[in-house]
C-alpha cells in the first residue's frame, strides 16, 4: 500500500492510464473504473495460492475464498439486475480456488456485457432492483464498483499477511 510516491493510489492511476490525455465522459469513466478493479480482483484471485483460500485475518470474518465468492455474487446479481437477466447461482458454497476463480470470471462475463454497452445516454436511465424503487443506472454501477474496491481492500491485506504482493502494488 505504500506503492506510490505520488498521493493517489491505483484506482485513479488505473483510470489515468486508460484515459491518457483525452477528455472523458461519465460512461467512459465507469468503464475505466470497472476495468481497473476487475483487473486487480482477477489477478488477486489467481495469484493467491490455493492453500490460502481458507485463510481469514481474524476468526470472525470471511476467508479469502469467501471474499471472492461474495464479490462474484454481488457483481453477478447487480449486473444481472441492470441487464434484466436472471442472476447467476450463488458462489457462496464454493471453497476451491479453481471454482471461485471461475465464479469470479463468470460474474465478469455478465458485467462486461453491461459495462461495454454503456453510453452517456444511460446517464438518465434507471433500473429496478431490490428495495427502494428505481435507481440511477450509473449510480448502481458506481455502487458496485465502490463495493468491489472495498472488498479488494480486504484482499490486499490478506495477501500482504501471507507475503504475497497484491496486484495493485506490483511493479508497473
Amino acid at each position: 500500500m505504500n506503492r506510490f510516491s505520488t498521493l493517489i493510489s491505483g484506482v485513479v492511476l488505473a483510470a489515468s492510464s486508460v484515459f491518457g490525455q483525452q477528455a472523458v465522459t461519465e460512461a467512459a469513466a465507469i468503464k475505466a473504473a470497472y476495468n481497473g478493479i476487475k483487473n486487480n480482483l482477477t489477478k488477486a484471485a489467481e495469484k493467491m495460492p490455493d492453500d490460502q483460500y481458507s485463510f481469514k485475518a481474524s476468526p470472525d470474518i470471511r476467508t479469502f475464498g469467501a471474499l471472492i465468492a461474495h464479490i462474484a455474487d454481488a457483481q453477478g446479481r447487480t449486473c444481472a439486475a441492470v441487464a434484466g437477466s436472471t442472476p447467476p447461482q450463488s458462489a457462496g458454497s464454493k471453497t476451491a480456488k479453481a471454482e471461485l476463480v471461475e465464479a469470479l470470471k463468470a460474474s465478469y462475463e455478465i458485467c462486461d456485457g453491461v459495462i461495454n454497452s454503456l453510453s452517456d445516454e444511460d446517464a438518465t436511465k434507471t433500473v429496478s432492483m431490490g428495495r427502494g424503487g428505481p435507481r440511477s443506472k450509473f449510480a448502481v454501477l458506481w455502487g458496485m464498483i465502490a463495493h468491489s474496491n472495498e472488498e479488494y481492500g480486504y484482499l490486499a491485506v490478506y495477501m500482504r499477511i501471507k507475503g504475497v504482493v497484491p496486484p495493485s502494488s506490483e511493479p508497473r
Partner: protein
Amino acid sequence: MKRYKGIIAAMTIASAGAFAQDNPLSNGTKSLYGMVKGNLVKAAEKMPEENYSFKPTPDVRSFGQLVGHVADAQIVFCSAVKGEQKQSNVEKTKTAKADLVAALKDAISYCDAVYNSMTDSAAADKVKFFGSDRPKLTILEFNVAHDNEHYGNIVTYMRLKGLVPPSSENAGR
C-alpha cells in the same frame, strides 16, 4: 464483513437510495460518499491511539498513515472539482490520533461542500485532473472508490486488533 444476509453490501444499497426524483445521478454519488465517509470517521475514532502505528506487515502503511492518506486524497480530489487544485501532506507529517482524526474531518468537511453542491446538470462539466479533462462527477466517484479501497484496508487492520469496524457494528439488524 458478514454484515448482511444478502450479497449486496452496504454501498450498493446506499446507491439504491439515490433515486430521488431530482438529480438521480449526483445523488447516487452523494449517497455512496455519505456512507463511506461516516465509516471512515467512525473507524478513525474507534481505533485506539496505540494502534495508529500498527501495520500488519512491514511494507504497508500503518493505520495512521492510511487515515492520513485518505485525508490527503480527499483534498486532492475535491479541490480539483472545486477548481482550487490543492495539495495535502497529512500522511507524511502527522502521526498522533488526534491530529489525524482532525485532518480527516477537515478534509471531509471540505469535500462535503463539493458533494453537496453537485447537480446532474453540472456533472459533466470538465476540470483538469491528472493531466486529463474529466467530468466533475467522475472525480467525485473515483474519490468514493478510493475511499472504499482504503476503508477495506482499515477494516482488516481493525479486525486484526480485535475491533469491530463501524460498518459491521449493527450486523444482524
